[in-house]
């Protein structure tokens, strides 16, 4: 037996709502006056927004409020040096140095592709940013931005090595688009992956290929 949209019980009929095949963002369904990013927003930012409402200091409708205009990296106090890595690690595989940039230690951190203002609380307990504040200003596609940041720090020109490095993370696409896939250019993951640039291999390359293909389709 499965749940049914319409079901007769002895006393009458009961109904259940049907499901859509697409996940939409709030703004795709209703007009949104202001966007307060974060899953959830930190309390300091919530306070700041309420304060702004009470004092009538809100910017133009449609604006993002309760966040900074920079990335999480600006909130993060870790030492940032040379971002050249030869391998990715999953967070449980190593104990990273708590004073240095996690990306430089091979842990995927969404900081460079995520809007700041949260104060980087995840980094404060030695865990990476996962992107819950969404893309920074002027970035439409957060996951694409993160993928491109990751691709740029892999210290290799050898396709096979790049493939090996990227394959350390299963579902790299899901990792990069953990938040906000419905708001991305990608929108959804296609089941069949055919077209990707010739000569590029590996999971990362395939997904970048997907991204490129999908991006071209969006006017």
């Amino acid at each position, binding site marked *: *037996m499965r749940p049914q949209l319409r079901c007769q019980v002895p006393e009458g009929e*009961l109904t259940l709502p049907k499901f859509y095949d697409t996940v939409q963002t709030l703004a795709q369904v209703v007009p949104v006056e202001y966007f307060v990013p974060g899953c959830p927003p930190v309390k300091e930012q919530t306070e700041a927004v309420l304060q702004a409402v009470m004092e009538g200091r809100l910017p133009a409708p449609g604006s993002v409020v309760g966040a900074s205009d920079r990335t999480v990296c600006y909130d993060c106090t870790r030492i940032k040096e040379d971002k050249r890595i030869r391998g990715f690690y999953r967070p449980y595989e190593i104990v990273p140095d708590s004073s240095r940039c996690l990306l430089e230690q091979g842990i995927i951190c969404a900081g460079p592709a995520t809007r700041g203002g949260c104060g980087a609380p995840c980094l404060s307990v030695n*865990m990476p940013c996962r992107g819950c504040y969404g893309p920074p200003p002027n970035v439409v596609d957060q996951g694409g931005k993160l993928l491109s940041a990751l691709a740029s720090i892999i210290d290799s020109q050898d396709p096979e090595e790049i493939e090996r490095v990227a394959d350390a993370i299963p579902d790299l696409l899901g990792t990069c688009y953990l938040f906000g896939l419905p708001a991305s250019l990608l929108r959804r993951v296609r089941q069949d992956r055919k077209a990707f640039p010739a000569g590029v291999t590996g999971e990362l390359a395939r997904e970048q290929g997907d991204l490129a293909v999908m991006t071209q389709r969006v006017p």
Partner: protein
Amino acid sequence: MSIDPTSEAIPTERRITIDPITRLEGHGRIEIFLDQEGDVENAYFQVPELRGFEKFCEGRPVEDLAIITPRICGVCPEAHHMASTKALDAVFKVDPPPVAKKLRELLYSAFYVADHATHFYALSGPDFVVGPDASPAERNIIGLVHKVGLEIGGEVLKHLELCHDVVAMIGGKYIHPVCGLPGGVSKPITEEDRVKIEEIGRSAVEFGKLSLKILDDVVLANKAYVDMIVGDTFTHKTYYMGLVDANNKVNFYDGMLRVVDPEGKEFAKFAPSEYLEHIAEHVEPWTYLKFPYLKKLGWKGLVDGKDSGVYRVAPLARLNAADGMATPLAQAEYERMYSTLGGKPVHATLAMHWARLIELLHAAERMVELATDPEITNPNVRTIPSATPGEGIGVVEAPRGVLIHHYHADERGVARKINLIVGTAHNYAGIAMSIKKASQGLIKKGAVVTEGLLNRIEMAFRAYDPCLACATHSLPGQMPLIVSIYDAEGKMVQRLRRG
């Protein structure tokens, strides 16, 4: 679920629809059918949503489930984070260092104080403290603060904040913490943190005592309330399930699952990893939520009693299923509750609120115990997993009851199959029965349904601590609730609206 309050849907049944009901995890809808005499023939509690977490987590790095599953709920994300982290320990076959387990439990205890306080003061408290017949404009946390005084109101808010600070100190974020990893936690605490946490814990113990005193003064001293609590309208004789420690005392973080029968005798006791031998799930076509039941007794429908497989979880169930509390002040309160209500087990659903405050006190005492543990600042908080990943089950007591996370991962540590049974699901049958019984007890001969009457029906499910959406959506008392009442000819005779 949104309803257009101005829409005039053509009624086709003698029915009362409460839709949406809020202040529970997700969405709910109550359909009440009246017979020719205007009495309640039947009431259905539908859950018209499906979130799909079990499906869309497939294919993800399994350790990400500790980050994704807390998003099931903004009120009890810590419970999902803990159950998930424990399931990950099992998936990777890794035993975290003792201090890591203690830090998890410390975070969890602080969360419990805040969560139980939220429920008592913001959700259920207004019904009792302000009164079930008060108007919704007063029957909310603001009205409650008005009644108990600003000073106590300040204590409530202060402790909510302090306990969330503890969650953030250990977990990074105070909602959706991120510290849990297979094999431990991501960061040790410093002596400075420890001192702060101990101080907060001691303050929380006083707050727990104060909360019980408010219950005494406002609820237990009022005979009408006590009569309502112990009355038949809010009573169901069911089985009860809860986590217990090695001494059969209540434990929120770890232990064995124990089930007692409606007479209070032990019916089963098993390791959480064996849950599938004891729990099965029944599907009804009119709802998206499944009904868990005790496998050995089978599904007999939405009925209580010793022959029915229906069991209940959450505070009162935990106390019923255990032999006592593991901390001294909570134990004294435990004994007082059972001696006042006539011994174990207590079947009065509304006594859940009393049990919840005893648990709040227990969690506060546990915070102090853990914060003063000599090894709590030990920096060795991680064991790096080395085994090939596989299957793992993690169970904790969420404030709303037994929470089970069950993962299958492949050899690369990718999630392939996920099963989650949350507290509200275990209680689904109980909630559905409570709503039906309360409706039958309160709506007679088609009498006009007043706000107060409606609220008493809601109290039947609110006792189970349905998660609130208030933190992010609306203030308590502004519940977007619409009830339409139709007579036997299908004509609408009354429409009540809140919000």
